[in-house]
Structures are given as C-alpha cells and as structure tokens.
C-alpha cells in the first residue's frame, strides 16, 4: 500500500490544501507551526480508517472554523492498483472509492472495500479507528513511547510473517502453556521464590520428619551411651575396689610394722633423755668439786704473795712523812713574806691613784671653765644672727633679677614717655584771668599739662577750645606704648610693694649686705658648734664633780697624803707615786714566786705519801678478802682429806653415766628414727588416700548400680532401634519425595527455558530487522532484543555496549532521544515485516518524531529512514525543520499559512 496524493478541503484549518503529492519512497512535508502538517497526517489517517458517516467527537474535531463539510481526497496504491478515495465527513457523510477497470463504490460498500484493502475491520469509529496502524503513524508527542504494544496489536499478521521468516520456529501450543503453568504452579506449591521448600509442602514435612527422627535417634543413642558409660563406670569402680583391696592390706601391714618400730624409738628416746640428765648432773657435780679445789689452792698462793710484797712499804711510808713536814714549814714562811709584799704594793697603788685623781680633778675644772666661756659666745652670735635675719626679712621682696627687670621697665617707660613727649602737645598756663579747665581739670597759671589726646579747654565761660595733638596714629601708638610701659612698671613695682625703681635698688643693696653678714655669723656659729655645746658643757660639769668626788674618796684611804696645790704639783706627785708602785709590784711578784715553789714542794710530798698509804691499804684489803674466801671454801668443802675423797667418788659417777648414755644412743641409731617418722607419715597418707579412693569407688559403684537399675518402663536398646528405624524410614521416605519435588522444579525450569528459547527464536527475525536499523544509528553491533510472552511482544531492550549480547538496557532506562530512535527502528522493522501483506510497501508517517535527537544523530537517522525506503517502505516525514532532513534526498512538500488556509508547494529537499 502506498500513498500517492492527498487533498483536504474544509478540514480544520485547511480550506483547500491543494493536491499534495507523496513521493513513492521519501517525502518530507515541511511548514511552519500552524501550517497544518499534523492535520494533514491526521486527515490521511482518518480517510483510511474512519467512517465518513458519523457524528463522533472525531468528526466534530475535524470541522473547519469557517464552516463547510470536511473532505479528503486520497489517491493510493494497493493490490497493484491505483485507488481514489473521497470522503465527506458528516452525519450524512459520503464515501466513494474508484479504481480503473472497476465500478465505483460508494457508501458502506466503499468503506468495506477500503477496509479489505487495508487489512482491517471495516467501518470503524472512535478509538478503534484512531488505533489503526499505530506503528505506521507516529503522532506528534508519541515518538518516544514503547512501540511493543503496537507490535502486539498487529500480532496476528506479524506473528504469521515472523513464523514464515523464522523457519522452523513454531508457536507454543495451548497445551504447552497449560503444562508449563501446571508445573510452575506445582513447583510454586513446593518451593518458595528463593528456592527453599515451603513449610506446608510434602518435601518440607518429609525433611522435618527426618530431622525429628534423627534427633530422636540421637537422643535414644545418647541415653544408651549414657547407660554404657554407667556400666563402664561401674566396672571401673569394681576393678578399682578389687585393686584397692590388695593394696590396702599390704599398706596396713607395713603401717603396723612401722608403728611398732616407732614405739620402740620413742621408748629409747625417753631413756636417752633420762641418761643424758644423769650424766650431765654427775659432770656438773665433778666440775664443781674440781673448781673449788683449784680455787682453794689459788687463794692460798695469792695470800702468801701479797703478804710478802707488803713488808718494804712500811719503811718507805715513814721517810715520806718526814719530808712532808719540812716542806710544810717552808711553805708557811714563804706565804708570810708574800703577804707583806702584797700589802706594800697595795699602798703604793692607792697613792698613785690618788695623785692621778688630783690631776684629773684639775683638768676637769679647766675644761668646765673653757666650755662655759664658749657657750656665752654662741649665745651672742645667735642673737646677732636673729637680728640680721629679721632686718633682711623686713626688706621689700625684690632680688637682683627683680631689680634688673624693674630697671628694664623703667628704661622702657622713659623711652615711651620720651616718644610721647616728643609727639604730644605741652600746654602750659602761663597766665589766666579766668578759670582754665583742661579736659575737665582746672588749671591755674604755671601749671602745665601734656596733651596726648583731643582735649577741650574751657577758658572762662565763653571760650571753649578743643586741642587735637598732632602725629596721627603715631601719637596713639606712642600713647598706647607709654600706657603699657607705665602699667608694666606699676605692676612690677606693685608686686614688690615698691613705689619707685630707686627703692628697689636700695632694697637690693641692703639685702646683699645683710646676707653677707648673716653668712659670717653662721660660719662662726658653725665653727663653735664643733667644740662647744650644751651637752659638752653638761658633761664637763659632771666630770668635774666626779673628779672631785674621786679625790675625796681616795683621800679618805690615805689620811697622811698631802694634797697638791696646783695641777703641776698634782702631775709631779702622780709621776712619783707611779714609780713607787712599780717597785712595790716587783717585790710582791718575787715573794709570790717563792711562795708558789714552796707550796708545790709541799703538795708533791703529800701526794707521794698518800699514794704510798693507798697502796698499802689496798694490799691489806686484798689479803683480807682472799682470806675470807678461803675460809668460806673450806667451810663448804671441808678440810683437805675429806675433800679429796669426795672428788674421787664424783669422777667415778660421771664416767658411768656417760657410758650408759652412749649405749642407749647406739641402739637408737640402729632403728633409723629419722626414716621411721617419714615412713609412718607416708604409710598413713597412703592408707588415707587408698581408703578415700575405696570409699569413692564404692560410692561410684553404688551410684552406677542404682542408675543402671531399670524401672522397666522402657527398654533403651529397643528405643534406639525404633528411633533408628524411624530415621531410616524417614530418610527412605524423603528420597522419593525430594526426587518428586526436584522433578517438578526441573520440569518448571525446562518449560520456562524452552518457552524462552522458542520465543527468542520466534522474535529473532524482528529483532534482527530492528538491529539492522540500529546499526545505521549506533554503528556495527547496535542490537536490540524483544521477548514474546504469552504471545505478546514485550521487553524491548537495547544492547548497552554495541557488539555484545550482554548488558541490555530496558526501554524505559534509555534517554528520550534514544527512546524515539529505538522506537522508530522498531516501527520500521514491524512495517517492513507487515509490508509483505501490502505489496511490499507500507507508509510510515513521522510527525515531528525526532524532537529529542541532536543534529548529529538526525544525520544518522536519515540513513536509517533511507534504508527503510530502500527496503520498500514509503517514508513520510512532517517537520518544521526541513533543513535537518536535507540529507535524506526526499521529495519536499511545503505547507504555508495563507489567507485561504495552508497551501502546498512541491519541490526537492
């Protein structure tokens, strides 16, 4: 089927489109918006599939705004003929269909024939009409939709053609579907989606039964094993008891032997202790006797030696007594001489001291007099100084600097006055008969006044003169300076309380003089202050009183001393007394040396005599002590003969006791007492341990026996046998159940796989055609795939990476541009397959279908469209941008907006 031309009248915005001719292969219809491109596509589609007669929404939608009945004339090829179709769409619309060599058809006959030519149900309306050939008409805005449902809507013809092109591929039968569903359902009742058995399935029950039976078997085996362990425990305890029965008897015998030996050792040790006591007592007694004997002998020897040594000491002591007496007499004489010399020396000293006191008394009186005179002079100077300072204070308060400043001001004043005088007017009243009043001041004759400013002069009652001193501004300046100089001088003098500069100069001269005098007095005072003061005067007074008292006191000790009359006498007397003192001291020192020598000789003699006396006394005491000891010993131990007998008896007793002890120890060593204790402890310990083990084994055996004593309620061995048999039966049961379940799952899997394989085989021609178009877009390896599920096309996908059959992307996951390109490829492929039923050609209309494709991709799209045209399809593209399809080499139809509606114009694109 191929479109040849179309003409629209009163169809929406088209009043008369004129004849629009379609190229047999490629047509690009362009025009601006509102040129009526989509309306053209719609009108051609409605002419083919919508009944002319009707008043549906579709009929009303095609009504023109300016009135009239919509008409479409369509010329097309079908079944080798050219057909002319005319439809007037209205409630009473008409249809006519004519072709060469046949009678013209109209009305329902025409509609029916048209439907037959197009291979659709005749006389459609509403959605059914609009839905026809959806894969061939790509409406504006729908280019990016998945075209798979469209393929399904054409599946009758498509499937037939695919089956033809798929070779041996066959459709699954209803039985196939039913069996597949049956096994899928059966598998679903057994297994979850994750592949695990469902809990309510026979497989799960059989598996659970096996698990439970296994657990019961394990429990029964555990119980039996516990019994066996108990039996082993019982036998072990029995064996232990048998073994212990023998070893315990042996141990007890050994223990008895060692105990007897231990008792013997204990007895011997007691004997040893007693024998040792006896031997020690005898030895002690012997030692005591021997010691006493030796002491008696030693005492006798000592007394004898002391008495022999004491005889020479008596003679020596007598000689020493005599020498001592002589030394004592000599010492007493020397002491008397020394005392006399000392008295003479004391008297000489007192005399010298008195003479010296007199000298001091005279000196203290002279000093006191000197200081009293000094103090009077100081008082005079202080009075003078106070007077001078008072005079100075009474002078005006001006110093040399102040005087200098006043003098400078006076000079300035004189200069200013001189300048003023030079410029001022001197008014002198030489004579006047009437009163003269100048500047308000009365002047009499002889008075003069210097006028430095405008001054009115009244003379009498009638004459009034105004005198204006000359000089202009210079007079004013002189007058101002003079005033300022006066003021400054007055201020300076006023500050000092002076009236004139002369006073100031006088005051400064007097101040200078007074200052010089004050400094002289202060220097005198300062000089005297170093030697004269009230304190020094008081001290001198006190020293004088003390010197007088000292003289008085000393004079009392020497009544015969002649007091000197002057200081010089006193000094001479002092020198004489000093010489006499030196002589007396020398004599006293000699007498003291003699006395000391005699004293030392006496002390030495006394000391020697005392030492000799002490030695003799000590020896006498020693002899007495020794004699006392000797008497005591003899009293204790008797005289020499009985003492000798007792000593011999004691020696014999000691020897016998030692021999008895040695014998006892030898017997004890033979019994090895150090090992016996260890043996006894070891055997006691072994007996305890063995007894404990025996008790433990008896308990163990009793417990085991009690545990093994069955109550007859159950037979563990039979229980285990039953549990094992049940486990085996459960395992045996599980095998066919599991096999059955796996078989069902295998069937489900195989049916699913075979269905998919068959569908793949079936859809491969379509997929291959789609891929052929995709290669135009995406280059070699551009592949797509589709699935056929329940005889419906689905699962359109695009290879993620060209040339690979893995990693397909679903349609919805693609970008908008890629979606419309893939959809176009699918439409072309479907059209190509279906074209076999339409003389190898079908029109494919793209109305603004590639709005999302970039310019570069549009170039390759043209290649795809051209391929489709080359394969026999009629490609009609409606676009606002004809330049984008310049590479297609298509016939161009341009629609333009005119006053009479859009108008067509043909050409080449």
């Amino acid at each position, binding site marked *: 089927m191929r479109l040849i031309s179309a003409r629209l009248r009163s169809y929406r915005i088209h009043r008369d489109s004129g004849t629009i001719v379609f190229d047999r292969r490629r047509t690009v219809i362009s025009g601006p918006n509102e040129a009526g491109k989509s309306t053209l596509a719609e009108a051609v589609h409605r002419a083919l599939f919508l009944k002319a007669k009707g008043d549906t929404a579709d009929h009303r939608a095609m009504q023109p705004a300016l009135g009239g009945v919509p008409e479409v004339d369509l010329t097309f090829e079908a079944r080798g003929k050219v057909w002319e179709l005319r439809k007037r769409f209205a409630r009473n619309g008409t249809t006519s269909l004519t072709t060469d060599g046949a009678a013209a058809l109209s009305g329902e006959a025409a509609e029916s024939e048209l439907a037959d030519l197009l291979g659709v149900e005749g006389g459609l309306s509403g959605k059914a009409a609009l839905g026809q050939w959806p894969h061939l008409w790509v409406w504006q805005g729908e280019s990016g939709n998945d075209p798979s449902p469209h393929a399904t809507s054409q599946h009758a013809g498509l499937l037939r053609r695919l089956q033809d092109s798929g070779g041996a591929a*066959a459709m699954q*039968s209803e*039985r196939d579907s039913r069996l597949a569903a049956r096994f899928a359902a059966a598998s679903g009742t057994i297994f979850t989606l994750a592949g695990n058995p469902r809990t309510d399935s026979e497989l799960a029950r059989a598996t659970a039964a096996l698990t439970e039976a296994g657990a019961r078997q394990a429990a029964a085996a555990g119980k039996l094993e516990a019994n066996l362990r108990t*039996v082993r425990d*019982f*036998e072990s305890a029995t064996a232990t008891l048998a073994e212990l029965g023998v070893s315990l008897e042996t141990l007890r015998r050994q223990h008895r032997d060692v105990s007897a030996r231990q008792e013997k050792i204990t007895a011997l040790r007691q004997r040893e202790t007693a024998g040792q006591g006896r031997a020690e007592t005898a030895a002690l007694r012997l030692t005591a006797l021997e010691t006493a004997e030796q002491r008696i002998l030693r005492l006798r020897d000592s007394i004898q030696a002391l008495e022999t040594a004491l005889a020479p000491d008596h003679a020596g002591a007598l000689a020493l007594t005599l020498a001592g007496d002589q030394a004592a007499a000599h010492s007493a004489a020397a002491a008397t001489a020394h005392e006399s010399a000392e008295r003479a020396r004391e008297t000489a000293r007192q005399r010298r001291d008195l003479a010296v006191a007199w000298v001091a008394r005279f000196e203290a009186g002279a000093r006191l007099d000197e200081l009293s005179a000094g103090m009077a002079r100081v008082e005079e100077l202080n009075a003078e100084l106070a007077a001078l300072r008072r005079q100075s204070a009474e002078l005006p308060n001006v110093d040399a600097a102040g005087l200098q400043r006043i003098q400078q001001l006076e000079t300035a004043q004189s200069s200013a006055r001189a300048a003023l005088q030079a410029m001022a007017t001197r008014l002198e009243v030489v004579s006047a008969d009437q009163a003269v009043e100048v500047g308000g001041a009365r002047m009499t004759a002889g008075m003069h006044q210097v006028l430095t400013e405008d001054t009115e002069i009244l003379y009498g009652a009638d004459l009034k003169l105004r005198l204006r001193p000359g000089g202009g501004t210079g007079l004013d300046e002189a007058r101002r300076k003079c005033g300022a100089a006066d003021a400054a001088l007055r201020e300076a003098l006023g500050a000092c309380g002076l009236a004139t500069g002369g006073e100031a100069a006088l005051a400064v001269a007097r101040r200078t003089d007074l200052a010089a005098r004050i400094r002289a007095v202060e220097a005198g005072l300062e000089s005297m202050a170093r030697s004269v003061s009230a304190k020094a005067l008081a001290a001198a007074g006190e020293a004088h009183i003390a010197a007088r008292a000292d003289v008085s006191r000393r004079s009392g000790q020497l009544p015969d001393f002649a007091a000197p009359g002057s200081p010089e006498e006193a000094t001479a007397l002092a020198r004489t007394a000093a010489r006499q003192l030196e002589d007396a001291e020398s004599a006293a020192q000699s007498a003291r040396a003699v006395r000391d020598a005699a004293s030392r000789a006496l002390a030495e003699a006394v000391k020697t005599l005392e030492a000799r006396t002490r030695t003799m006394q000590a020896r006498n005491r020693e002899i007495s002590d020794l004699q006392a000891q000797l008497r005591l010993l003899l009293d204790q131990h008797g005289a020499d003969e009985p003492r000798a007998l007792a000593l011999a008896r004691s020696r014999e007793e000691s020897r016998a006791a030692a021999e008895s002890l040695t014998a006892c120890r030898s017997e004890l060593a033979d019994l090895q007492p150090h090992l016996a204790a260890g043996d006894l402890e070891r055997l006691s310990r072994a007996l305890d341990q063995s007894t404990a083990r025996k008790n433990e084994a008896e308990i163990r055996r009793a417990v085991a026996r009690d545990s093994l004593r069955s109550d007859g309620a159950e*037979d*563990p061995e039979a229980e285990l046998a039953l549990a094992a048999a049940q486990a085996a039966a459960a395992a045996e049961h599980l095998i066919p159940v599991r*096999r059955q379940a796996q078989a069902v799952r295998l069937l489900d899997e*195989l049916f699913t796989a075979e269905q998919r394989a068959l569908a793949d085989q079936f859809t491969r021609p379509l997929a291959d055609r789609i891929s052929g178009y995709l290669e135009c877009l995406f280059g070699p390896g551009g592949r797509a795939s589709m699935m056929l599920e329940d005889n419906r096309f689905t699962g359109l996908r695009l290879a993620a990476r060209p040339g690979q059959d893995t990693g397909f992307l679903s349609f919805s996951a693609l970008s908008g541009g890629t979606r419309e390109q893939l959809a176009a490829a699918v439409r072309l492929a479907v059209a190509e397959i279906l074209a076999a039923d339409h003389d190898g050609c079908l029109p494919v209309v793209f109305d603004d279908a590639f709005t999302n494709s970039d310019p570069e991709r549009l170039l390759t799209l043209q290649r795809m469209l051209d391929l489709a045209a080359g394969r026999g399809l009629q490609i009609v593209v409606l676009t606002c941008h004809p330049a984008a399809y310049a590479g297609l080499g298509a016939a161009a139809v341009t629609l333009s907006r005119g006053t009479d509606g859009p108008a067509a114009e043909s050409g080449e694109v």
Partner: protein
Amino acid sequence: MTVTVRFLHTADWQLGKPFAGIQDPEKRALVRQERLAVLDRIGQAARESGASFIVVAGDLFDSASPTRSTVAAACSAIGRMGLPVYAIPGNHDHGGPGSLWEQDFFRRECAALAPNFQLLLKPEPVELPQAVLFPCPLLRRSESTDPTAWLRDGEVFAGLPEGKPRIVIAHGSVQGFGSAADDDEGETGGPGNLLDLDRLNPAAWDYIALGDWHGTKLLSARAAYSGTPEPDRFSKGESNEPGHVLAVEAERGGPPVISRIRTARLGWHRAARHFSEDAALESFQTEIAELLGQRGHQDLLRLELSGSLGLAAASELEKMLDSWRARLLRLKLLDRTRVAPGPEETARLMSRAEDPVTGRVAARLAALAQGEDENAAVARVALRELHAACMDG
C-alpha cells in the same frame, strides 16, 4: 551308674525385640507377640519329647533392660512350660551391673510365675539329678576372655559324679558363627565372646549347648547351636535354618542323640528380581504368589529389585507391591529399578509437533535421564510426571 537324660536345647529367644524395621505398629506387635507364642510351642515340644528340663543358651531377652511387660509375659510363658528351665545370660541380656536379672521386679515375677526357672549366673558346676550343668554365663555384653576358659581347669570336674552326663551351656561365636554374621539389619554383636571349644578336654564333657547363632547348626556330634525358635531376621544363605529347638538325649561318655523340632510359625523370605523387560513382571508376580500362598500376616519378605521398567509396567509393579505390603507383615523393598518411559513412550513425548515446547522438554529430560546418578533419577521422575500430565490431557 550311667544316667541318660533327655532335655531340650534352645537359645536366642530375644523376647522384646522391637522389630523397628516394621513401620506398621499393628504388624510390629504381631511379630513381637509371635516371639512369646513360640515359648508355648517349645514347652509342648519338650513335653512331647519327654525332656526332663530345658536348657536356654543365652539371649532370652533382646536387651539387658527389657520392659516390665516383656518380663512378665516371659515369666508367664516359662511358667507354662511346666518343667525346669535352666538358662544363662547371653550378650543381649548379659548379667552385668543393673541387668534385669538383678531387678526386683524380675525376681518377683519369676517367683510368682516361673518357679521352674533357674538362671545360672556363676561359672560353676550345677548338679542336677540327671546331669551336671557347666554354665558359661556372659556378665557383660562383650567378654574379652573366652567364657568357657574356666572349664580348661581339670580341677573343675574333680569330685563330680561320673555317671551323670555333663552339659556345657555357652553363648558366643565359634569359628565365624555368631549373631553378627547373620544380621542384615545393621545389628552387631560387638567384638568378643569368642568360644575356643578345641581347648576343652573332650573327655570332660558330653554336650555343648550353644547360643548366639540364630540358625540351627550342628558344629559336631556333641556341640550344636539350636538357633532361635522363631526367626527374627532375613537370614543369609540356604544352610541357615532358624526356627527350631533341639531335643537332646545324652549320657556320660557317649555321643548324644540330637533331633531337630520345628517351632517357627512366621516365614521370613528373601527374593530378588532383575527386570530386563516389562514382560518379566508377570512371572515375577507368579513367583511371589507361590511363595506366599494364601497366607496373610504370617510372612515377611525382603525383596530386591533391579533392572528397568517402562512407565506402565512400573505402575503395575507398584500395584503389586501395594498388595504385598498389605498382606505381608513386612515388605522390605530394595528397589533399584529404573522406571522411566520406554523408548516408544519417550519418542511419542518428544515428537509432539502440536506441542513444540512439551516435545523439547521431553527430549531434554530423556537426555538427562541417562545415567545412574541422582540427577538422572530426578530426570526419570520428571519424565514420568510429564508423561502422566500429557495423559491427563
């Protein structure tokens, strides 16, 4: 004076055996009950054979701690025998610590119901009016030493009457004969309990009554295993003939006269069949029918199947098995038969042109089903399921 004595030799009653392999509780109870019922038949045989007493060579009970119910029933049955019963403990009911022989309950029941029962727990001669017994009791499940070793000492026999026959009673294995060698249920007697009868002085004894081996077996002219009086397992080998007691007539110094008395009632059968074609199923059914006759609830069958069967034949076999399961006290089935659609069935499944997916699935399953591993077995089941589903339409 020489004394001749007639007595009955039996062993391995194994009362209280659980028969856990029988899943049906009622059938299990029937088999257990039969072990008690045989005691009455033993008593009858003893009386009919003129026996003076009965010797039980161990394993009266299946375990050393049977339930009170089992003990009471056993005492009652022994009491009904009406003549002295002398027994030793075997490895199953050994006389170890806590064994039933020590239990007060057993003693009370025995005194009340079976005063004729005497358990010989000590290895020492027991002189009876007609004979001297030499018991070799097992006092633990597994004795590491020969229980008959005490008889190697000549002093044991000193002072015993010369005219009375001497009967040794022992329980254990002799040269490969023993309970462990005859068991396909996984039971083991454990190591030990080996009897070396060659080391005994042949002149010192006249008959050795043995227990442990469940088949009836004459070891020599003077030594025999009586076997269990009622079979309790699918015994191996043709020569293994359980289900008897031995009537023995013995005298001192002479060979005993031993005769076998059948006591068994239940039939324990073994059968095997390899299927190489579906048609063999019919002959197999005939064979089993002849084996079982018209009996019901009296037989146990261990059936070992191998080979392969088609789906239809397999379905038929399953029906036969269902029938036998009902009739038999136990059907122990070791089924290694490969059940899968036959070549024709498989070909029909694979060539379903109208159902292309089903055909392709069948082809893949047929390929997977080749082999002996678990995956192949699963594939065969799947093929069977697919076949059945297709048959359902």
